[in-house]
Every structure is written in C-alpha cells, then in structure tokens.
C-alpha cells in the first residue's frame, strides 16, 4: 500500500472510531492526522469513558493489588539478592503512610520494598527529554525519611544497561545507579540521602557514555 493509501486508511479508521494502527508519516501527514484527531475528538458526546471499561480496569487493578503482594523475605530469596517487588500493592499499603520504595533494580514490575515512611511528603516530577525534546520517560522524587526517586523510561531500540545520575543544584552528582532496559523499557527506584528540594535533575547515559536524555525538576 502506498503512503497516500496508508494515510487514507488511517484517517478512515479514525473517522469510524476504530483503532488506526501504525503509519509511516512525514511532517505534512502528521499535521493532517493531528487535525483529524482534533475533529474526531470534538464529536459531541463521544469523549466519555465506557462504564464497562472503567469497571473492568478497576477490577484488573484490584486483582493486581491482591496478587502482587510479595513477602519481602521470600522475594529477596527468590530473586537472589534483588529487593522485593510489590507493585500496585505498595500503593495500597501506603494508606497509612507506612511503606515506600527502596532501591530496586528490575524491569517489568514496579519496584518498591517496604520501609518506614513519614506521613507527610514532598513530590517533585520531571520528564526525561532528548536534546531535540523527545519525551523518553519520567522521574518522580519523593521527599521524606528517607527520600527516594522512581523513574521509568522508554528508549526506542535500546537494550542493555543504562546509567542514571542525579544532580544537585550545586552541580554535584548525588546519586547514581545502573539498570537494564529490555526492548527500550525499564524502571528503577532508589532511596537517596539528599533533600529533594536541592535536586536539579537527572541524566540517562549509555554504558558507552552517550547521554540519552536529561530531566530538569521544575
């Protein structure tokens, strides 16, 4: 199918409310697609979520929350020294302000293990962007005792180790860590011994020293 036909098929799916799929597009096509999306999204009464979807997603998250709780000591043994993974259950356990994430290196699951946490917190967020402003991921810093950072990244067509460094406003590197990306995707969290108000940002660097993306806290 030539590009013009691909574009028409994409727009036809969009107009009909179907999933449009993929498209090899140039910048002019992108402008056309963006306009078609804007038009389609303006169709009256079509932007409310389906209640079945809302209910099904709730059930899925609830099931994950129930099944994802891993006792910390068992997880530590099972993963040969890696820290325990709790995933969504951590969010549930946080109700009383009693659990936060500590260092964990693993992909595919979100990583917190249980330690004592304060009731009040401070949060700072930033987006990892390439030099040409493409979004590659996000970082969240939670202030507390201890403070910690969490990040998830999506670097297209990259597999292997990636190094993250955290910089303070003074320019000093205050923390660093290495984690693996699988098919470009990875997540990492780490406790830090620094006031998160003093953080300037973070950098993602490949093992060969190439800077992939940087994030600056607002």
């Amino acid at each position, binding site marked *: 199918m030539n590009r013009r036909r691909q574009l028409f098929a994409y727009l036809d799916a969009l107009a009909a409310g179907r999933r449009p799929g993929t498209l090899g597009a140039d910048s002019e096509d992108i402008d056309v697609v963006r306009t078609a999306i804007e038009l389609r999204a303006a169709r009256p009464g079509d932007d409310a979520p*389906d209640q079945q979807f809302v209910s099904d997603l709730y059930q899925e998250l609830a099931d994950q929350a129930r099944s994802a709780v891993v006792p910390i000591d068992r997880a530590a043994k099972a993963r040969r020294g890696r820290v325990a993974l709790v995933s969504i259950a951590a969010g549930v356990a946080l109700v009383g*302000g009693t659990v936060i994430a500590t260092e964990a290196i693993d992909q595919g699951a979100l990583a917190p293990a249980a330690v004592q946490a304060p009731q009040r917190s401070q949060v700072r967020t930033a987006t990892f962007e390439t030099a040409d402003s493409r979004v590659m991921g996000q970082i969240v810093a939670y202030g507390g005792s201890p403070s910690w950072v969490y990040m998830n990244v999506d670097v297209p067509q990259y597999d292997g180790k990636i190094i993250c460094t955290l910089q303070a406003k003074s320019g000093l590197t205050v923390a660093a860590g290495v984690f693996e990306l699988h098919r470009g995707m990875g997540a990492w969290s780490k406790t830090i011994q620094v006031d998160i108000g003093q953080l300037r940002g973070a950098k993602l660097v490949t093992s060969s020293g190439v800077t992939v993306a940087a994030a600056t806290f*607002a």
Partner: protein
Amino acid sequence: MSPAPRTSPITVPSRPVSGDVTYLRVVDADTYTDWESVYRDNVDRLYRLMYARVGNRPDAEDLTSEVFRTALGPLRLASSKGEVRAYLLVTARTVLASHWRRHLGQPVTSIDPEADAALLAEPSGPDEPSDAPNRIGRILATLPDRYRRILELRFLEACSIKEAAQVMDVSVSNAKVLQHRALRMAAKAGMELEQ
C-alpha cells in the same frame, strides 16, 4: 500547587464486618485514602484527556489503562491530591509519547503537565465545557463550504466516505481528495489560530 485548607475528618470503613476490628484513621481532606479513590477521582478525566489526544476509544482506553498500571505502583498516598494528579499527568505524558513513537514514529499530540493540569483539577467532570468544539468551529469557519462540509460529514457526523460522497453528490475518489485537501487546509488554519 496551592494547598487546600486541611481538615482532619475521621473516616470509618463503610461496612464493618462483625468480628473484625474497626479502626479509626485520621486523614487529610486533600489527600487520597487509597488507590481506589485515586482511580475513581481521576479515571474519567484521564480518559477524556487521552481521548482528546488520540481521537479514538480503543487507543484512549489502552493508554488510560497504561497510565494507571504504571502510576499506581510507586504512588505514595501521603502526597496531596494535587501532587498525585501532577504525577498522573507526567506519567500520561510519557505514555502518550511512547504511543506515538511506536505508531507514527514521531509525536503527533502531547500532554503538557502544566498547561493540562487544569483538566485534572477539581472541579471538573462530564459537564465541564471544553474549548475544543469552539476551536474546531473557528477552524471550520475559515474553510470553503465544500471542504467544511466533507470534514463535518466524516468526523463530526460519522458518515463513511461513501455516505459523504453521496451527500455531496461526488464520486468516492473525489470525496477522498476533498477530505485530504480539506484536512491540509484545516491544519494550516489551526496553526494560524495558535499564532
């Protein structure tokens, strides 16, 4: 984020079960008590935001799901509602950027955590008027009649290309050409409106 006045209501589980211990817990008014309340309070608005960025239900549902799956794991409920929403928006920005990279190789639409913060902030909901129809109305008003009509038929009135061609009394091929030219002109008009 401006902090809301804090109160300290005492919450009690709504359905205490006989034999179970019922605990009282002091919570802040501007924090979420559990992940369910984060979900219920934000799923509708996050979905609408994603829908506005991708223009179709299947992708909007997938992306909304991905935001919650990604965000709820490391979520810390001691954070304020504003902080939780800011975190959801940053997650949504990343998820949407990945979506476009996978499907079109470059960003088509994006989320700005600062500019779009109002979309997740209270009060909001199904009845809140959106600026989108006004903007679309202004764009369409700049187009020649036939261009405006083909776009209305296709994207606002849910006509197939065949139905639109019949209404406009042109061939299907001609309707496709009209649609393409109309979208290009509308894209240009949209950019001019932003300037």
